């Protein structure tokens, strides 16, 4: 008998994956990674159920004991619920009996959960607490006396929060959340969310016609923004004298891209000449109030896109704050769940500005609608090209933090983290 170790370093029971990454490393991305069913299956196990932290919801969406939401870790259905002690728990939305969904609503309030199929019931920590007809009927039937409820239950996830965002992991070996994120990413999350109370202003699902990683690449790609999204340029709204940068954590998987007003150049002759030229040559907004924002952050940062591996985005685009959850549905279908946020501390004027500026983002967003279709352009473009590779050499081969955003460093960073998780 021969034993093959297909995936050294990965847990027992890990599905085999016979794939070899191009020898160039992260400057090349083989197209099979977006198309192959075996990769898609392995990702669920190695990425989403591996030692990563997955965004579930906001703490603010579970204000009271018993409040729950249903969501996903990759494709795995999950219930996230606040229990009577105030703790947030997450467990599989899968009955321990025959596998049916336990909760059938997007959200609600529950004292306990009961599977509709055979009424096996669960407490708010995901413990199996009751079985219909456990002792049979009139002494007939029932479960064997040896059946121990404590040995059965949906898998429980480890839950932690940062800045009011609820994350969970299935892997015992995952480091604590803050360690996973690193200090710089934590600081950039708290910069947007800490010290105030988020209020959900709307939830939308954008169904993307492409593999989930094509959307992640797009989020990480600071090179495409001014080329694909021409709204700001067309309307002469690009601001000279912006400074910015790119932060990439050491795993490569998390990043922050930001730009801020550089007030030191606003009075220079060059700035004024460019402003004049732009005002002459471009279209004007008929209603310029779209971009009359308010100063929300003392650091002058007007754009911050932050991602957490594998599929979470926190965005600040001017005064539009939103979180995005990226979930694979099929090899070539992805759900992008948008949650638009305001804060309980907002004045009515500030809230009105957020609503108005939300035209910039989402499926109909002036600076984001292209992101919904460009992944599909790639997915369709690479059909039949599984043996070919994408080139990621803008800015060299590094995955380091830097001031220039004309680089693909954070896209390469994603592939670095992905290859680690996948053992590729």
């Amino acid at each position, binding site marked *: 008998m021969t034993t093959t170790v297909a995936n050294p370093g990965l847990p027992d029971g890990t599905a085999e994956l016979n794939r070899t990454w191009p020898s160039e490393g992260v400057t090349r991305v083989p197209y099979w990674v977006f198309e192959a069913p075996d990769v898609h299956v392995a990702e669920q196990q190695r990425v989403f159920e591996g030692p990563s932290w997955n965004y579930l919801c906001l703490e603010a969406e579970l204000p009271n004991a018993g409040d729950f939401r249903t969501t996903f870790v990759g494709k795995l259905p999950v219930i996230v619920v606040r229990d009577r002690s105030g703790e947030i728990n997450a467990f599989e939305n899968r009955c321990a009996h025959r596998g049916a969904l336990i909760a059938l609503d997007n959200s609600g309030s529950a004292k306990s959960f009961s599977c509709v199929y055979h009424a096996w019931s669960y407490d708010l920590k995901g413990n199996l607490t009751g079985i219909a007809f456990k002792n049979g009927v009139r002494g007939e039937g029932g479960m064997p006396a040896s059946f121990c409820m404590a040995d059965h239950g949906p898998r429980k996830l480890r839950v932690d929060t940062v800045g009011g965002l609820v994350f969970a992991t299935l892997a015992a070996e995952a480091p604590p959340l803050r360690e996973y994120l690193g200090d710089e990413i934590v600081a950039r999350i708290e910069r947007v969310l800490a010290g105030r109370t988020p209020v959900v*202003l*709307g939830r939308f*699902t*954008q169904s993307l016609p492409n593999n989930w990683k094509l959307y992640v690449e797009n989020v990480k790609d600071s090179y495409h923004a001014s080329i694909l999204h021409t709204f700001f*340029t067309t*309307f002469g709204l690009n601001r000279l004298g912006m400074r910015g940068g790119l932060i990439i954590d050491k795993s490569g998987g998390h990043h922050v891209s930001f730009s801020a007003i550089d007030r030191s150049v606003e009075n220079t002759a060059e700035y004024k000449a460019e402003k004049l030229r732009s005002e002459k040559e471009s279209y004007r907004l008929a209603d310029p*109030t*779209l971009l009359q924002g308010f100063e929300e952050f003392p650091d002058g940062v007007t754009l911050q896109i932050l991602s957490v591996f594998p599929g979470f985005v926190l965005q600040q685009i001017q005064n539009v704050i939103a979180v995005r959850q990226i979930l694979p549905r099929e090899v070539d279908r992805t759900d992008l769940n948008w949650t638009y946020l305001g804060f309980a501390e907002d004045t009515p004027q500030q809230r009105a500005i957020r609503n108005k500026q939300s035209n910039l983002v989402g499926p109909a967003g002036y600076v984001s609608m*292209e992101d919904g*279709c460009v992944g599909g352009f790639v997915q369709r473009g690479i059909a039949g090209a599984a043996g070919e590779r994408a080139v990621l050499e803008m800015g060299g081969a590094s995955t380091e933090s830097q001031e220039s955003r004309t680089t693909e460093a954070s896209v390469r960073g994603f592939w670095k983290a992905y290859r680690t998780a996948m053992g590729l």
Partner: protein
Amino acid sequence: MSDTFAQVAALNARYARCIDDGALGDWPAFFAEDCLYKVTTAENYKDGLEAGLIYADSRAMLVDRVSALSEANIYERHAYRHILGAPFIVEEGDDVARAETSFLVVRIMRDGTTDVFASGRYVDVVRLGAGGPLFAERVVVCDSSRIDTLLALPL
């Protein structure tokens, strides 16, 4: 048939024809200058969540959306076909009426693919009388919380 019903039905018919024929430049003229046009979902609407996929509180913002679609935004060529129900007049005053109208919108892509893109209802406040009828408010409440790929052309 009441005069209000006939006016709202005719306004709806002209509105749908304008978008489906690709005459987007004429679309803002269906709205009052200080209008509200919002696209949202049934779930957000029921929960009273205020954000919109598109949110315009002036006709000028609709003009900007049309310019952005023609001059700035990049998307694959496609068209809509609106199928409208009869308007239900919820409330009617001297020069204003509240109405709701069901819609079904199919989207026809460049390669001929035709899909149901959205269904839902328009929740409208229609300004009647001189210069009218015009939409003072048109809240597009999509039945589904899901938008396929992108929402470029208005609903």
